[in-house]
């Protein structure tokens, strides 16, 4: 267990995968990584680098979690959730949770509940306001049986979901920056607010909405949520919005914006990953570098100050702490590149393992 305040990340392993990695999770024994990739689910052995494709979804695989030391569950753009026994190498169950994509999936810390979010952005007004949902946007399932427990409403597209560390709340956020917080057990809506800071309406080029919240995590005390995405852009196709996080209080009074990316501490690019660890006083945000000099950074949970940065050379889609914060994992993708002369494409998926290497601050 680390006891420090200042992270000094050191990369210890790096791997290339055939296609982009949209989510990755380290196994309990820390020997392998389950990777949700554009073309299927892979198991990556850390000691040998051996890579094995386990199975496929009908489309991109968007999220993956370990339910136990043997079983993983994945979600995909086919709307399916798939339970798979890694030891037996066999599929346990497949549940069609959504008609459209599962944009994101979260597993409760007690591994009893799964939350998955969906929603297709369809024009609902002259200025392309989103149409109301055609299916429930948030689905809560029993992680063991796969049974649907709650199907809860939101406004499409709902792109990020998180379950609080105390397993009491589930939160989901959408294209328009609307956040809805429900009781995980009852499905009762307890909080609802909108932040417009992650959403663009293209003054030039694209006269529609783009962006929204792309990642969400609760703070260790479950009393606030962190949101990540990209600030508004005049030209949404530029992808040059501010690398943005916001911290919102879940106090009994109305939700309150507590903090956000500090002035002068962000470049440009979509942020898609947040990682929070109960034992650590900081969090990680990662994504794409469009302008500036970093695409992953550590921020102090209390002050919001940026502590240290990384420039990985690829777009980060997932970030996770492991071993109580001793290690963290980044996953993502580079450009697919053109067709090679000999055929096929280069390996453009990335998984990297880092030591957090945190130190006490000097006097």
């Amino acid at each position: 267990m680390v006891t420090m305040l200042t992270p000094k990340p050191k990369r210890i392993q790096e791997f290339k995968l055939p296609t982009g990695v949209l989510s990755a999770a380290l196994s309990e024994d820390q020997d392998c990584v389950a990777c949700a990739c554009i073309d299927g689910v892979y198991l990556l052995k850390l000691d040998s680098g051996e890579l094995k494709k386990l199975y496929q979804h009908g489309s991109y695989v968007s999220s993956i979690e370990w339910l136990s030391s043997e079983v993983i569950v994945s979600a995909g753009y086919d709307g399916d959730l798939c339970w798979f026994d890694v030891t037996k190498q066999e599929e346990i169950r497949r549940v069609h949770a959504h008609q459209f994509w599962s944009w994101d999936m979260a597993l409760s810390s007690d591994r009893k509940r799964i939350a998955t979010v969906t929603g297709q952005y369809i024009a609902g007004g002259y200025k392309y306001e989103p149409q109301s949902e055609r299916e429930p946007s948030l689905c809560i399932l029993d992680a063991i049986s796969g049974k649907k427990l709650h199907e809860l409403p939101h406004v499409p597209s709902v792109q990020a979901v998180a379950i609080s560390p105390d397993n009491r709340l589930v939160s989901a956020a959408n294209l328009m920056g609307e956040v809805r917080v429900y009781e995980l057990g009852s499905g009762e809506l307890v909080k609802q607010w909108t932040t417009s800071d992650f959403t663009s309406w293209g003054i030039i080029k694209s006269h529609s909405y783009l962006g929204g919240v792309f990642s969400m995590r609760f703070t260790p005390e479950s009393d606030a949520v962190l949101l990540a995405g990209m600030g508004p852009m005049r030209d949404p196709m530029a992808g040059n919005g501010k690398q943005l996080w916001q911290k919102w209080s879940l106090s009994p009074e109305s939700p309150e914006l507590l903090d956000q990316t500090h002035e002068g501490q962000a470049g440009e690019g979509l942020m898609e990953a947040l990682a929070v660890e109960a034992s650590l006083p900081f969090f990680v945000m990662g994504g794409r570098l469009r302008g500036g000099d970093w695409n992953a950074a550590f921020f102090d949970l209390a002050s919001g100050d940026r502590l240290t940065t990384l420039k990985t050379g690829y777009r980060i889609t997932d970030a996770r702490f492991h071993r109580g914060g001793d290690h963290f994992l980044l996953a993502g993708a580079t450009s697919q590149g053109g067709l090679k002369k000999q055929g096929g494409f280069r390996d453009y998926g990335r998984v990297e393992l880092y030591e957090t290497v945190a130190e006490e601050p000097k006097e």
Partner: protein
Amino acid sequence: MTKRGCGSPEHTLHRRLFLQGGMAATASSVASFSGLFSIPAFAANAKASGKKVILLWLCGAPSQFETWDPKSGTETGGPFRSIPTALPGVHVSELMPRCATIMDKLAVIRSMKTGPSEHFQGIDALTRGDTPRPPFTRPILGSVIAEQLGDLDSPVPQFVLLDPCPEGNEFKSFKAGNWAGWLGAEYGPIRAGGDYSIPNLDKLETISDLDHEDRETLRQFLSRKYENDRRSEAAASYNAAFNRVRGLMSCAPLFDLEQLPKADRERYGRGAFSQHALQARHLIENGSTFVMVANGMPWDNHVFQHEMHQMLVPELDNVLYQLVTDLKDRDMLDDTLVIAMGEFGRTPWLNEARGRDHYPNAWSLAMAGGGIRGGVVHGATDSLGVEVVDGVADHRNLFSTIFSALGIDPHHEYELPGLPTFHRVEGKAVAIKELLV
């Protein structure tokens, strides 16, 4: 085959009849444009006046993988699946379920291979039929069609561009001459839609109809005198513009989205592009010859490729379905060519932002009606959509096909005193015969 306003009594009569009909419609605030033509003979005349075109201009360039040439399950296929269509063995993206049911009425070219890979050059090639040759400005397709098939005597604008946002695309800075080029400003578009609403078209209440006509007669006399005395092209352009405004005043209800039937508005969809596509149908029904519908430049998805295409393609799917079905139901499809295309396609491979970049080497477009044979898929790309392997066609072949379908000589030589030799389509490029009725 140039057709210009002849000033015949018949046309004069029609204009007056139209004016009467237009005023009656405005006064009664009818919910449908059918009320605009209170004199049935006029509506019938508009319907029978020849071939028309609706160009759904997909500016920014849509992805062929997420529309007409899916490669699902391959390394380039993207996240969307393919679905079967009304044509056995032909699949399109799952984002196009409605068009899948009318593929027997659509013609798809899957083998477009064009040179320019940047927007300005691509837009030139695909809206004018050729790459730029400064300082000469080749007229845009709508101007050529308006000049060839339009009725300049009609108060209804012959070439209309419906595009809601001035900041939207490369057309922002276009002047009339940029559109019509050497054909002359009178063949440029009337630009309307959204932020381009046409203001101040109502005649002042303090001016009587008789007074209004007298003022117009005096203006025409003075302008023609000035034009004759000075041989002024500027005065001619000014007169052309004034005449168009005068025509617009009489058909202002055609540009009022609020007067479109509510059920039609719901059926076409609520986004600006959908609403303007419906408006395009009404304009065509009521006498316009060429209506170009754009919505800024939304298809240029270097980032958010799949997030944007999940919204844009279903909108296009519905708009194309509704247009083709409506035109068929109204017995207008044979005479109305509908084209849906952008300036190029998107790369088979994903960039670092998981977007698709510009790709002119192998891309797709769709057409229907107006002399184009339905139920044809022309050409093919390889298994990954990287290269055209059959039926390669470029912008010249496309324009040759469009002109041929409309009965316009594609290889006509322009009479341009003092200018080099230009043809409607250069290089004697041939039409794609299997697409022609």
